[in-house]
């Protein structure tokens, strides 16, 4: 009874301890000035092809603001992590990036409130050719195919992108291949099942027939690794396959994959022939109200 009395008598102390902890947690995280102070050092450490990963992830916008050059879109919205050999992890509050679990730390530097570590991918699968980049550079032929007949889509530069906002379509880029009837092919971003950005080629096939992307100068590699999906927020309730993607090389079929919005950002892989040839990616609707699908593809 006396012990219980003592415990109860300590409750006011709990109130004071909670207040002290509140003050501690409120002041614990770095402020915007700390990120700004980190930026020059980060710029020196950052190398092309070594994505910056922030832990915890919620701090990333603050670092993007302070050091925008450390976040090229091609790295920030990468299709996955496996294609990169190293990552530069910026950690605060003792956090570690869960996606880099198992990646060895080869260098570490403490800079104020931040710890910057170079993390090595134990099983890197480097990209030799990025098909999304090729579309962006115009190194692709885009065609519509209807009843065996192919018609070219025209590359155009519009004054501005088109955006759908929260409940509308993803951003339709300024630079795009227009294929008639308002349909186009262009590079944009979609959100995956974790709502992370993924850079990809948005291809809108015609109602009947297909849209075809033909890449003529793909270096020889053993495999093609790709991803496809729709904006998860928009299409996450769609469980029926809506789109079929087929890949062929030198006229030999390599892969056929269907996708439904609810599947998120789907990974696929295909072995390539020994002799490289033109790679064709063909997309066809399986439903009349197919959402906007997007794919990324890399030769690895």
């Amino acid at each position: 009874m006396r012990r219980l009395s003592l415990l109860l008598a300590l409750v006011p102390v709990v109130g004071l301890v909670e207040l002290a902890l509140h003050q501690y947690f409120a002041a614990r995280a770095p402020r915007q000035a700390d990120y700004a102070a980190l930026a020059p050092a980060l710029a020196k450490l950052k190398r092309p092809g070594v994505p910056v990963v922030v832990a915890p992830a919620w701090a990333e916008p603050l670092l993007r603001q302070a050091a925008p050059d450390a976040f090229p879109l091609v790295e920030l919205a990468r299709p996955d992590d496996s294609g990169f050999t190293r990552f530069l992890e910026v950690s605060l509050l003792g956090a570690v990036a869960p996606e880099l679990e198992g990646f060895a730390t080869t260098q570490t530097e403490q800079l104020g409130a931040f710890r910057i570590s170079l993390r090595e991918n134990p099983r890197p699968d480097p990209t030799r050719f990025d098909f999304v980049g090729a579309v962006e550079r115009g190194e692709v032929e885009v065609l519509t195919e209807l009843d065996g007949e192919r018609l070219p889509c025209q590359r155009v530069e519009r004054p501005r992108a088109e955006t759908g906002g929260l409940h509308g379509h993803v951003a339709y880029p300024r630079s795009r291949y227009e294929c008639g009837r308002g349909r186009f092919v262009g590079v944009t971003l979609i959100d995956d099942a974790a709502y992370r950005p993924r850079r990809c080629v948005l291809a809108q096939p015609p109602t009947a027939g297909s849209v075809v992307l033909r890449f003529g100068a793909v270096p020889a590699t053993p495999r093609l690794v790709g991803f496809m999906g729709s904006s998860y927020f928009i299409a996450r309730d769609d469980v029926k396959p809506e789109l079929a993607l087929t890949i062929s090389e030198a006229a030999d079929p390599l892969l056929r994959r269907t996708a439904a919005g609810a599947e998120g950002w789907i990974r696929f892989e295909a072995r390539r022939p020994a002799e490289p040839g033109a790679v064709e990616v063909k997309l066809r609707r399986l439903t009349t109200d197919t959402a906007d699908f997007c794919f990324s593809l890399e030769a690895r």
Partner: protein
Amino acid sequence: MRAHADAWITGGLFVGYLALLVATAGSLGFMRDEGFYFGAARAYEAWFSLFAQSPAEALSRSVLDRYWAVNHEHPALIKSLFALSHHFLSGAFAEASTSFRLPGMLLSSLAVAVTYDWGRRALGRAAGLVAALSFAFMPRVFFHAHLACFDLPVCAMWLVTSYVYARSLEAPRWSLALGVGVAYGLLLDTKHNSWIFPFALLLHFALTRGAPLLGDFKTGAKWWRRLPLAWAAMLLVAPLVFCALWPWLWHDTAARVREYVAFHTGHDYYNMEFLGRTYWRPPMPRAYAWSLTLATVPLVTLLLAAIGAVHAWAPSRGRSDYVLWAVSILASYAPWLSSSTPIFGGTKHWMTAYPFLCLFAGLGFTQVLVALRRSWQTVASPVLAGACVVIGPVVMALHAHPFGLSAYTPLVGGAPGAATLGLNRTFWGYTTQSLAPFIDSTAPRRGVVYVHDTALQSFAMFQEDGRLRADLRPSLDIAASDVALYHHEPHMSRVEQQIWVDYGSVAPDAIATFDGVPIAWGYRRKSQ
């Protein structure tokens, strides 16, 4: 003399809390829902004006329907108060929005005062004060208490109705019973949480008077005499009050009540992040309500409430008030025992439980005082002990302002800890206010601002109050904008991604942070 002092304390709590809310309202941006209610209140205000000039015209069905169809998915009482307050008091404040918000602030202050009064009657003055201040300065309560919304009003009306009901049980008089009927009618006309209230009373009755009633029933005695008089008033008077104060129901009453019920029983599932996962369809996590309570209510308040509840549990202490407090808490949380109940509004859904939780905290505080006197008689001071248990909540609530929805307690590591755990950082788009200096200094003359989650009516109120430049044009089209705002929730990331593509930059130009955690940010278009 003592009663005089208590009246002063009750009044002081009411006036003091109201003054604090009014004084701090100017720094709190406008919620998405507030925008819709401003619009509804303006429509109702116009109807009231028409009614004053031409009653016959105002009462015609077509006119009634035209004005009262606006936002008819929610009852009209609180929005009518917003309308009347704006009509009569808009010139009394520096900002028009304060007049819309005043009824909510008054009802929130009333809840604080009633919590004190009930706590004082049941437990004593010190416990009443601890209960009232613990409630007033729960960070989320302090946040919602500012708003032209229904969440604190329904909390206040539930508390007031319960209080009058408890008094009617102590002194079964028709006047008090009638008071319960009227109060419940007002509660029904405030928000649909009111539908659960009768179940709380039934449970209370079963636990406190069920056994004797059963005995009467078995022996053939007049068992119905044990039924509270207030129930009759709730059945007969409350529906009349409900309909009388909601002109939308004056025609097609049954169909429109059915539509109202159907709207809320079949409500859409909006998105809500919980422990790193976004929930947008059932099953919703059953642990959500309890976990969020733990993460947002100061631990010292919860601890005191737990002590109070344990103390009240003792069979010899089965006081009717304690049981009523307990069933009000259980009833308020009960919908979230089902995994199909939406969770999109976070803690606001079950705030009706919080005054009762704090009354138990007051009861717990009485036990702490007893223990203090036993252990350290010489230093045991109710004032000092009371200060120790309310200072934390007061500091936390004031510190959280105006980022109340981002506020988390030390139990989860504050705002940074909650962000790391994947708890919702913000919703309702109100943090636009924190980006106002960026918007005003950056947007070109007559520039277009993509408002993201801020309702267009809320943006208009920012402008009407002079919190944002009047020449700016709000838009829901990123591509048409010169400045784009982004209020972070994971499922809304696609909005920021569209800004990246359209603006050609991933670097925000301004970020509003709370305790170092980014809450909302803005981009400026640098090229055409």
